């Protein structure tokens, strides 16, 4: 554990040193920050968007925004990784809001027999395939508001605690807990109603 903390501290120092060098005019050092955290940024964004080119576009926006606001980064307040994760989460939130406004709910394509069985029956031994699970989840998420969607993803899928979500989204911890509870309830209802809706459609 000490070893991990020491590694994290060293990494934070490296990042802060890198940011200072960039601000002093060594623009090429920004490449180090991009390469160090690009997997992390893509992992965050992939939770909200499955289309590769869109994820790349949003990730690009995230880094350009980080570049433009680099002067505002304060290593005493938070490590660079957290600061960048916050920018990525906000970009994801804006993306989800825009998608909801322009595209509405994600349509369900043809589900496989196993997925349908899984939906219909309470006790089902066959495990759900990741791709189908993601599709069902994305569809049911359509019942949630953008904020509910992001908070639920951060809490349930990324496994983050309320104080951390609060830092990432800028919302109060109490609001996070209430929103999360409501989001889970809505998602459970959507899942419960899905088999009937799907059968009606087909």
């Amino acid at each position, binding site marked *: 554990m000490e070893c991990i903390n020491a590694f994290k501290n060293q990494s934070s120092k490296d990042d802060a040193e890198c940011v200072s060098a960039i601000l002093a005019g060594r623009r090429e050092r920004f490449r180090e920050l991009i390469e160090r955290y690009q997997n992390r940024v893509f992992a965050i964004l992939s939770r909200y968007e499955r289309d590769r080119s869109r994820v790349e576009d949003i990730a690009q926006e995230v880094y350009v925004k980080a570049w433009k606001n680099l002067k505002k980064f304060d290593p005493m307040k938070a490590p660079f990784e957290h600061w960048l994760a916050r920018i990525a989460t906000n970009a994801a939130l804006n993306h989800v809001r825009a998608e909801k406004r322009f595209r509405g709910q994600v349509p369900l394509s043809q589900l496989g027999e196993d997925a349908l069985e899984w939906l219909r029956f309470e006790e089902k031994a066959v495990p759900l395939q990741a791709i189908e699970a993601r599709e069902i989840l994305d569809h049911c998420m359509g019942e949630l508001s953008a904020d509910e969607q992001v908070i639920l993803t951060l809490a349930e899928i990324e496994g983050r605690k309320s104080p951390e979500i609060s830092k990432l989204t800028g919302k109060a911890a109490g609001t996070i807990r209430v929103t999360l509870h409501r989001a889970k309830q809505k998602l*459970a209802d959507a899942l419960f109603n899905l088999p009937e809706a799907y059968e009606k459609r087909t």
Partner: protein
Amino acid sequence: MKNERKLNELVRAAENLPGITPPEDFAERILSEIDASRESTIILFELALPKFARAALFIGGLFIATEITMNIRDYPNLAAGAIKFADQWDAEFDPNTIP
């Protein structure tokens, strides 16, 4: 909560889907995007600002030249003209002179 077990199962299954990985030239793309935005800022500074500066310099120069010319020819200068104009303005609205 109804369906909670299923909901957890769904979330755990969805988690197993691998995320999208960045393309190999991702850093390169970002850096060229940044360069492009810097170039547009430089264009603004190099092209637009000197024009504004020249226009301001021209107006300032014109003002000074007029002032000097008027002094040489013994015309009342602009400051004196402004004071005279202000006096006339005040006199116009003087309650004693308004019928």
